[in-house]
């Protein structure tokens, strides 16, 4: 009996060790706690993720993603804020739009250093509420804020994360900040364990993913979903004010394979509002026609689906071209 039990235990342990090795290659995430921003990738950690796409992401301090191949930070510092599309765990350091843009700017004679602070799940209200924290951590002179059309619609009003609120119909917008959960002992222990074992981290990630798939939208009650023009404009104004007008909006357009050039209603609203407010805007859709002509979609990976999920390398390249153009124009105008 004892021999059977020991065989079962030993066999199971060996299987766990094998999966630990596989997880270190497939999905290994190590985090530290930032008191304002919550969980960020640990400094010096190379985060590998092959769940969607295949990304290798090196991180500097404060969870800033930056390719080691770019060398030390030189020139104008530009903080790149955004959600999982900027975090871009699906592509490698050299393919992410921040790296591609930095290289393009430098080769165009504009020394700049783009600091990628993208993090999955961030909202536009987060960029407003935490503007000071982002500035402190990057010492940036300019900000790029990546958004989608839905980010100024329902996504901005989800009560489960930092969100916008309008106390009354005539009141100005407010930001309701949802701070990261308190860093209790259990959370610290779990984070330590997770940092030691890629398998545990991957299993926890899978657990969250499966729970999310079972109960879609359960944790994302939307207080209000106004997409009216004046609301979108008010949100953009708050965003611009938070960075003293020193920002560029990077609008990632949806991709309709049948008609790549057509704006969605939400994107048209954002473009109009940004234009009226004089906010610099880079629009990835401007590059979609060329992508479509090459038979390439900006979203999707061989291990996921075409035109679904996050930006692929071609999508990042398109976003980088649009952003480079916008930043060079600002530079030429002397605003940057």
């Amino acid at each position, binding site marked *: 009996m004892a021999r059977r039990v020991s065989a079962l235990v030993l066999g199971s342990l060996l*299987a766990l060790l094998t*999966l630990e090795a596989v997880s270190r290659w497939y999905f290994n995430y190590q985090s530290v706690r930032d008191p304002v921003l919550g969980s960020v990738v640990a400094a010096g950690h190379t985060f590998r993720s092959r769940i969607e796409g295949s990304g290798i992401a090196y991180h500097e301090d404060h969870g800033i993603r930056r390719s080691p191949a770019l060398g030390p930070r030189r020139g104008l510092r530009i903080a790149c804020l955004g959600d999982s599309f900027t975090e871009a765990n699906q592509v490698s350091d050299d393919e992410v739009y921040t790296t591609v843009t930095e290289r393009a700017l430098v080769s165009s004679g504009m020394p700049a250093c783009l600091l990628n602070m993208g993090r999955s799940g961030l909202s536009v209200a987060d960029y407003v509420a935490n503007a000071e924290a982002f500035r402190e951590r990057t010492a940036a002179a300019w900000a790029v804020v990546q958004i989608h059309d839905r980010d100024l619609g329902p996504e901005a009003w989800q009560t489960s994360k930092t969100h916008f609120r309008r106390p009354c119909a005539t009141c100005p917008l407010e930001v309701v900040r949802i701070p990261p959960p308190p860093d209790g002992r259990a959370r610290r222990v779990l984070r330590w364990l997770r940092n030691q074992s890629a398998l545990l981290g991957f299993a926890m990630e899978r657990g969250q993913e499966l729970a999310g798939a079972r109960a879609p939208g359960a944790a994302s009650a939307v207080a209000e979903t106004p997409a009216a023009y004046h609301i979108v404009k008010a949100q953009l104004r708050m965003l611009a004010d938070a960075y003293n007008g020193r920002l560029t909006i990077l609008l990632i357009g949806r991709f309709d*394979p049948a008609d790549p050039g057509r704006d969605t209603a939400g994107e048209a609203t954002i473009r109009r509002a940004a234009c009226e407010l004089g906010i610099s805007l880079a629009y990835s859709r401007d590059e979609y026609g060329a992508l*479509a002509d090459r038979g390439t979609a900006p979203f999707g990976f061989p291990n996921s689906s075409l035109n679904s999920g996050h930006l692929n390398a071609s999508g990042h390249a398109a976003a980088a071209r649009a952003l480079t153009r916008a930043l060079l124009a600002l530079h030429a105008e002397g605003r940057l």
Partner: protein
Amino acid sequence: MKAERALLFASLAFCAWLDTRALLLVLFVATSDFLISGRIASAARAQVRARLLGASVIIDVGLLLAWPAARLSTDLVERLRDTPFPATGPLKAVLPAGASFLILRSLGFVIDVYRGNAAPCATWTRYASFLSFFPAFLAGPISRGNQLLPQLERGIALKWSGFVEGTSIFVQGLAKKMLIADRLATIADPVFAAPALYPPWTVAAGLLAYSFQIYCDFAGYTDMAVGVARVLGVELPRNFEMPYLAKDIGEFWRRWHITLSAWLRDYVFLPVAYAGSRQVDKLGLSRRQGELLNYTAASVLTMLVAGAWHGAGWGFVLWGGAHGCALAAHKVWQGAGRHRRRMPAWLGGVLTFVFVSLSWVPFRTASLADAGGFYASLLGLGAGRTYAWFPSWLPICVGAIALGHLATLWASGHGPDALKAAGDRLASLLGLSVAQRPSAGAYLAVTRATVPGAYFVTLVLLSIFLFAPSKVGPFVYAAF
């Protein structure tokens, strides 16, 4: 007796959980066919027996056809009027879950009693247990009365060896479903949803993914059903025998959904062919011509029945008709083959696989127009821009299926000697053995607690948790 009642209660509870209508259907069919089969066995006059059988056929087939007929006629009316039909509820409702399998089980039993191949069931409880046996209720295998009823009569037997063996088989099925079939669905679904977006080679990859998805999904369900039944000490028949290795279409149908093929052969094809042979004799054809005509008519009719059994849609009818014609064409080819060189086996296998895969298109698409669009994209005739996409999971899944086939070849003793020697060594190391059963065939099962065995089982179970797609699709055959 208590165990029998407990099994019936569990099975009925499972039916009710799946679909309340399924529970009502089980109770109705079990009662009507239990009474009819008992009367058939006791009736002395052949005419009375035939009438009772006719009543059972009308009730069962009527139940089976009610939903598809309502749906097909609604579709037809909609198409003719070019407006949606106002009654969208009951007329367009799908069959209750497991209904088509339940009716085949019951009707087959009544026919067997009529033919004298089976004795009527002694108690209603046992007959209802046979019809609603929960591991196989949703999507088979379609057990015959003379296979399952004697086992239920002996009673369920919970034994440690059965538990270990059954669990091993269940885990294999779970892996087929969750690691392979659901992953392949992530490739096939988007391609079938919009084939015009993709270049021909991506459309072909999507079709290949669907061919393997439907196989792994259905074979995975069968393995899980066989595994659960084995835990209860019950043996269910084998339903798949590596069908994509078939060298001709006839062999494919002897390997694919074996219990349905056997049912159709015994209760549709053979009676039709027998009746047809008498009619053909009157036409004055040569013996060879008469045989071919009869075989063709019986094959096409049988496969049309198979298509209609799968659901209410012209795509299923087209699929069945195509397979019927292919069976007839194969028969003609076989006859002509006496006078010329035989086709190499590998070429026959490739042609069979290509035909079977192409025939899945109307089976999978929502309408004949969609099927036409898919074929057009496959041939590169679609209009508009296409986008290149190479699904990287496809070769991984196909490789896993190939490994599984090697293991099955070894387990069934059909592989070459080198495979047998290597398989024996590996199985000994892993503590695996072949559970060979007369009706169920060969399955790999864990028999000893060894380090490699525990390693293997833990690895498979954790891999399902870690790597299966987060969205688990329903069983494909649960919809039929």
